């Protein structure tokens, strides 16, 4: 076991001992030819992968980014459209409310007008009915008066006839009675 732990130090020491003039890098295993070869080989590897492999990966990343951008734009446009639609709906609602208010106001005005008109018509009609009734009453009164007048004349004539029987004839009585009645009217 002890040989195991001393081997590393011994190897390093022997390397230093055998190559006293070697610099520290050489003692650490640096072989400049090998290093240059590895450097060139690695650059070639980078070039090959950069030419044939990575463009595929990068294209996929770009495509995905493009899709994300497009989706973002579409979402933005949809948002704008939604906002515009909301505004339009709000405007439409406002317009509809205004129209509804106008309609209600118009309806109220029309209703008021109709009521007023109906009231006026009813009033006119009632007045007419009243006037007609007055007229009829007047006519009836006149007719009654005439009838009364005739009856009165007849009664008075009868009474006068009975009172002054034989003094005058019927024709004279009638004339006198009419004259008396006219005088009474005045």
């Amino acid at each position, binding site marked *: 076991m002890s*040989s*195991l732990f001393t*081997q*590393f130090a011994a*190897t*390093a020491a022997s*390397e230093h001992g055998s190559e006293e003039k070697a610099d520290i*890098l050489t*003692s*650490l*295993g*640096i*072989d400049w*030819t*090998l*290093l*240059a*070869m*590895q*450097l060139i*080989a*690695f*650059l070639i*590897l*980078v070039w*090959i*992968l*950069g030419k*044939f*492999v*990575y463009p*595929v*990966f*990068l294209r*996929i*990343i770009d495509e995905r980014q493009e899709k994300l951008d497009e989706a973002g734009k579409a979402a933005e446009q949809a948002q704008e459209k939604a906002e515009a639609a909301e505004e339009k709906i709000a405007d439409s609602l406002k317009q509809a409310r205004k129209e509804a208010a106008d309609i209600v106001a118009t309806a109220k005005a029309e209703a008021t007008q109709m009521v007023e008109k109906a009231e006026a018509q009813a009033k006119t009609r009632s007045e007419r009915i009243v006037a007609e009734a007055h007229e009829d009453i007047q006519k009836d009164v006149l007719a009654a008066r005439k009838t009364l007048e005739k009856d009165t004349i007849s009664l008075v004539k009868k009474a006068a006839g009975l009172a002054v029987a034989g003094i005058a004839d019927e024709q004279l009585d009638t004339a006198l009675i009419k004259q008396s009645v006219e005088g009474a009217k005045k």
Partner: protein
Amino acid sequence: MILTTFAASSEPHISLAAEEIFKLGPVSITNSIILGVIGVGVTVALLFYVANMLQNGKRNFVTGVVQWAFEGFYGQAEEIIGDKTTARRIFPLAITMFFVILVTYWLSVLPGVGTITVNGTPLFRALPADLNFTFALAIITVVASQVYAVRKHGFFGNVGRYLKNPIKDPIGAFEGILEFIGEFSRLVALSFRLFGNAFAGEVLLLLIALLTGYVAGLVLPFFMAFELFIGFIQAYVFFVLTLIFTSLALATHGDHSSSDHSPAVTATPAKQE
């Protein structure tokens, strides 16, 4: 081929440097490179598979996870850098670092890493446990941040971040020197942090396996899970620091406070271009 003998090591073999398995012409192929090649192969295959599936509009759990990680990290890159165009330019480098570090780190947890040996040398070693690799990544990060800084501020504008007239602005001149030193400290910090964690992880697993003996099969999974977690954290830290260093390099002088020297804690994203 040198690969002649494969045998499970009875004693742990610990070496600070990656070890040569065989030579390919003048280039020595180390054990970290062998596992690194496998790891990079797995990473490339996985990413191509997922990209192909996504291109054909097919999805499954693997594609979902990779795509989710990719998109998450891309979002972070945009947040840290602040400018989408620059983030898209630097991102392939940062995310490749993340995936490669993650997969190669995780491969070190596989049974056989450190235990299968060839002539006494482990056949596999995690790539992040090789300072050559982590140093190379750190150099790329620092150079890339400088390149983007020069692109934004111009060559002299970028140099002006470090060199200021000490008579007109003595504090700024001192701050410029500290910034210049800071660039090198970032290089060292980036490379040694990853290397240290990966190397320590490998050693830890080896030691636990040795110390626990016959019950290693019961104990090791907990440490392996811990190593997987550390691997993810290290890959993520490297990814974030790459972006933060670039962001700091792109920031104009007035954009950042003196706390920029602790970029892992605070970072001021570059202004939108």
